[in-house]
């Protein structure tokens, strides 16, 4: 398929791998920030192609994984209320809260629906004026513009039975948190391609300068990822630390101004709790006061729900790159995609699920 097959060519992949091997003089630890990148790495077996000594660690960029338990419990509390149509992206349906998941609630009669876009949820609200339609607005800077647009349109059209349960998170504060962690091993980053397509990469230039690390904004196809790794290794080997853009076909330095505008019209930056990591200052979005009527937390009075994480799961350390799924004693035994103990096992983008689904090697 055009624009896909070109980025999965094994000959080109080998050429890039050889170039990495030629440049590399010592081991390097590189973090891919995005869950989508983690998914591609294991799905296409990219990690297997890399020379020994290039270690990839998986970053906190899976929006499903980092959504805190208390937000999921709030979602469940709302979905169980009569007259509610609860809408969500597909992979939130299997994320366990402290009791159940949305799929189970659906099997017990809750009206839970998968949508591909928040605008589809808005359509549902228009079509069902006697119901309350709630959209589970999770995700990074990538999903924020469409969610903002849905609320903005709802307000403009006076659609009052629509609201968002907002759990938006932002990438740069998470990268800073990884680099500030006392046992950080990460020496370079594959930056989040689609996040930067929206936000641009000026914030990453500041991060790169502040911490002295190379950040290469990288795409999601196997050759994108290999090229991103090559560019990081080239910087590391030559002692450079700056932002480079591998994902030229999608990302401009200034990002998408129109998308940024709608986001800042509807959302304001706030502190946000990350599952397994804790609260990171200025790391999320909340609805601005002008749009407070569309905040599902207020509408359904669930703000009081305050669930604590169970202690057994090491997903927080995995999300920060301090540990790998195989380091967890529960991995693949007590904790499987069927019985996830933590969210990194639930989402297809979660590092543990990706390892389990694709990374198991025939023994």
């Amino acid at each position, binding site marked *: *398929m*055009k624009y*896909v*097959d070109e980025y*999965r*060519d*094994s000959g080109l*992949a*080998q050429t890039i791998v050889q170039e990495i091997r030629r440049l590399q003089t010592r081991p390097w630890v590189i973090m891919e920030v995005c*869950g*989508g990148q983690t*998914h591609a790495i*294991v*799905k*296409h*077996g*990219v*990690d*297997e*192609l890399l020379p020994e000594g290039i270690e990839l660690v998986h970053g906190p960029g899976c*929006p*499903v994984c980092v959504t805190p338990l208390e937000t999921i419990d709030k979602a469940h509390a709302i979905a169980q209320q009569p007259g509610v149509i609860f809408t969500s*992206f*597909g*992979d*939130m*349906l*299997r994320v366990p809260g402290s009791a159940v998941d949305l*799929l*189970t609630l*659906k*099997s*017990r009669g809750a009206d839970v629906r*998968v949508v*591909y876009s928040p605008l589809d949820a808005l359509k549902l609200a228009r079509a069902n004026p006697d119901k309350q339609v709630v959209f589970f607005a*999770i*995700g*990074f800077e*990538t*999903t924020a513009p469409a969610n903002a647009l849905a609320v903005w349109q709802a307000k403009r059209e006076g659609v009052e039975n629509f609201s968002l349960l907002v759990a938006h998170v932002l990438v740069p504060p998470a990268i800073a948190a990884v680099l500030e962690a006392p046992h950080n091993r990460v020496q370079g980053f594959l930056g989040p391609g*689609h996040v930067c397509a929206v936000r641009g990469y000026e914030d990453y230039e500041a991060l790169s300068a502040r911490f002295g690390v190379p950040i290469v904004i990288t795409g999601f196809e*196997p*050759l994108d990822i290999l090229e991103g790794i090559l560019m990081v290794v080239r910087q590391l080997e030559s002692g450079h630390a700056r932002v480079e853009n591998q994902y030229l076909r999608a990302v401009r330095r200034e990002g998408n101004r129109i998308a940024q505008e709608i986001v800042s019209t509807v959302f304001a930056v706030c502190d946000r709790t990350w599952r397994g990591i804790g609260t990171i200052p200025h790391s999320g979005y909340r609805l601005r006061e002008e749009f407070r009527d569309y905040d599902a937390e207020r509408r359904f009075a669930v703000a009081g729900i305050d669930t604590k994480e169970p202690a057994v799961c090491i997903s927080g350390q995995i999300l920060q790159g301090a540990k790998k799924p195989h380091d967890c004693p529960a991995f693949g035994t007590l904790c*499987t*995609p*069927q019985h996830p103990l933590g969210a990194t096992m639930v*989402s*297809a*983008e979660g590092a543990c699920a990706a390892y*389990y*689904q*694709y*990374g*198991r*090697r*025939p*023994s």
Partner: protein
Amino acid sequence: MSEHKATGWPGIVCPTPLVDQLHITLAHGSGGQLTADLVRKLFLPAFNNEYLAPLGDQAVLPLSGVRVALTTDAFVVTPLFFPGGDIGKLAINGTVNDLAMSGARPLFIAAAFILEEGLAVDELSRIVESMRQAACEAGVQVVTGDTKVVERGKGDKVFITTTGLGVVDKPVVIAADQARPGDKVILSGTIGDHGIAILSQRENLQFEGAITSDTAALYTLVAAMLEASDQIHCLRDPTRGGVATTLNELAVASGVGVEIDEQRIPVKESVKGACEILGLDPLYVANEGKLIALVAADAAEAVVGAMRRHPLGREARIIGEAVAQHPGVVVLRTAVGGKRVLDVLRGEQLPRIC
């Protein structure tokens, strides 16, 4: 309470459900791990016998010297009508295919209709006409049936269950446990068409170039293959759960490893595009008119040749082989040159967020 010997579960013995969820979820119907759990922990212990035990899509029963193939299937598709077919055509073809995958010649079908109060008679007429045509094309007769009506809201317009009966004429044993190391894995054509056609119609997704279901009766294709060789070990139509799930089932049942090449698996551009957009993997998407065969290596080319001369097998090709290593595990050699385990789905394939 004592611990159950076979399962290691505390407590109760069969046929009490040893399923560790209190309610049936949609994932129990996805054809993946939860479906398998339901079958192995609930149905199999209750009904176990030598014909059920292999858990095939059909049972081949020796009756007075004749090998009779018997299968049953339930159809609950939404929407009822979709590009390339409808629930009626699906019911006939699906049943014919389950029989054909044992090498049986399909003969008779019984059909039961569960109708929801309020269903338009016109819709039912179109479904029945479509079944008539499909049966005619497949050379089977619908010989008995049943009709029930449930209250509005207690069904989804129409559910159809079918039972099919056929005869295995040739002295071949084609079953899930017959694959051997060295066998070639043959796929009859493009994958993912049916699942994506249904999804596009159901979710009203507009893709460039219509994607139509591949629903088709595969018996004549199987007959052509059997003419070419008697060294066909396994046949399976990769419906729910797709090619990945089917290959896993065959690998486990036969105790062989399977290795396939991503690059050799044909996927239509439109289907590939839809899957990329929706975050789905075509290897797990349902097909209704394709088959997978495991065939002795020296017979594989002849079988592929025979398939390519048949309209339903024009794009048939070898996509991999069975190996002695890693029994029960399917390995995919990716286009970019990596390798990964192609696992069974744990639940429904859910669209990813980004």
